């Protein structure tokens, strides 16, 4: 019989991230990154790859705003009509 998935043997558990930064350090890191994003010259660091992915863009209220998501735009329209979002 084929076993598809057993949580007890899931191998993700060994992927541990080294504890280098304290919680306060992480907050500081976040502040530094956000300040850089707010800086006027942030375009110097933006890299446009083939798709529409942008670096340094966070989730905001405009996630569902009118954007061209290529082939997913039609799906999103259906989604919005059906679920009112």
């Amino acid at each position: 019989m084929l076993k598809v998935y057993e949580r007890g043997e899931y191998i993700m558990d060994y992927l541990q991230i080294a504890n280098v930064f304290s919680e306060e350090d992480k907050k500081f890191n976040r502040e530094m990154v956000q300040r850089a994003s707010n800086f006027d010259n942030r375009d110097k660091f933006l890299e446009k790859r083939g798709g529409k992915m942008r670096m340094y863009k966070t989730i905001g209220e405009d996630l569902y705003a009118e954007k061209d998501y290529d082939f997913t735009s039609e799906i999103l329209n259906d989604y919005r009509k059906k679920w009112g979002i």
Partner: protein
Amino acid sequence: MGDLTVTYQNISNNDSLYVLKRISADWIDKFGDSFTRIKMAYDEFGFDYPEECHTNYRDSWFHYRKLYTKKDKITVYKEQYAMEEHLLRAFKDGQINFLQQLCQCLEVWYLCDDIMCYDKNKEMIYQTMLKVTDGNWVEKVWKASKKNEQIFSAACVYYYQTFIESLDLKNQLQRFIHGIKNIILDLRGSGVNIYRPDDNIRYLNECIDMQNEICNSLQKVNMQYLISPSRLIYQHCRKHN
């Protein structure tokens, strides 16, 4: 959904549609786990997680909902394929984005002498800000500069060039940068050729291994705290040619 141990002893051999749907559900569940891991990596450095990854994950749910309600195999296969593509995209883009941000931060310091400078007339000011250099000295400099981004950035460049920079470190940074770029090429290339690993753990493993190696290595020269502020420091201290 994700709490059940799945076997097929009690499922009819004719119920292959149920198997397909089960596999799809497991994929989504697995992605949730991998997202947790890669998000932890993002949160370590305060990096922004790309919104496109969230939208791809959301879109995968849309396809899962479709395939769950269908009864013909062809449609289920089509929706499953579309769902898998969204998940794969979200997974890979999340990793590539993280590695790119990390790489750019390291490049700032690797090319420090060529691309950045500070006002050498103010060295005395920077020295007074750097009296305590244990722990997160970068945050201490930030507070000492009274959150003046310009002075803070210049002080960090001064300290790096005066006390941290060395040929060994430069070689190490070069090795990390090349390693990261190779992983990115590998990640991007795997979408072009027909090779598909059994799962995406391998790439996630490489991302996290790379991050751990970089942090542990830079810890020895107390440089890990310079990674996240790299972009801000560059913006204020870059040379204008």
